[in-house]
């Protein structure tokens, strides 16, 4: 039963993101220090993307969106840091975090080659896709695996924030067309 469930989970993650599968394969159940690291890394990735967009974006809605991302993800990560400190947990690097970071730096390099409206469009499209992937991982992997109640609760708040971002990004993407 457990094997079948994790196989189904892996298949679901495979469809949404090849990156998160590696983490699922490495350990069927992620530990809290690993989950904290993945969640924090996911935030840092979007902060870096927003900083790039602040420099390169032309459209005022895209610039405003990047500013919103920077503000929210910094606020979430600040809460995450305060929580790991309180719980005396040291976030632990892992294959999922590494793969996420690698994929993100490739994306940053790819977007860096674009300018003007082409950049705006590609940045927002990636924001939609990225938040979708992270939300899928939070729902199916990170939240169910979290043991500590406070960590689980912070991840649940994070999920609501990121679902909001996904809708916001979809709205901005629709406006750009």
């Amino acid at each position: 039963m457990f094997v079948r469930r994790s196989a189904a989970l892996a298949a679901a993650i495979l469809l949404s993101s090849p990156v998160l599968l590696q983490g699922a394969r490495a350990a069927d159940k992620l530990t809290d220090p690993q989950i904290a690291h993945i969640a924090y890394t996911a935030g840092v990735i979007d902060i870096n993307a927003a900083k790039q967009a602040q420099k390169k974006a032309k459209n005022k809605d895209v610039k405003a969106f990047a500013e919103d991302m920077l503000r929210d993800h910094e606020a979430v990560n600040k809460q995450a840091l305060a929580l790991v400190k309180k719980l005396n947990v040291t976030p632990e690097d892992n294959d999922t975090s590494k793969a996420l970071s690698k994929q993100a730096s490739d994306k940053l390099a790819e977007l860096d080659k674009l300018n003007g409206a082409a950049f705006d469009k590609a940045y927002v499209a990636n924001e939609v896709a990225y938040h979708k992937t992270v939300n899928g991982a939070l729902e199916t992997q990170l939240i169910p695996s979290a043991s500590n109640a406070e960590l689980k609760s912070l991840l649940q708040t994070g999920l609501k924030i990121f679902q909001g971002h996904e809708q916001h990004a979809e709205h901005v993407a629709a406006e750009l067309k």
Partner: protein
Amino acid sequence: MRLGRLSSIALVFATTAVPAHAATIEITMQNLVISPAEVTAKVGDTIQWINKDVFAHTATAKNGDFDVNLPPNKSATSVLKKAGTVDYYCRYHPNMKATLKIAP
């Protein structure tokens, strides 16, 4: 003439005395949830918007009647001027939605 002046003062008092019956209604945003999700109020009532999150939110009417900015852990007030059922949301997190039913 003197009497006429007095009665116009009385008239001013009479018109300003009306909003004394107006209520103040609290609407809270916490953990990305607006509560209560549905509020019934009257024209002249004051809404006190309370943001208990560390994130910035807005209360933005779909029909354009209001757009209130709520920085983290801040509150704001607005006085209801128009009757109707208004759906509103947060511009930053459009999954935060609620309804305000304003009676005349």
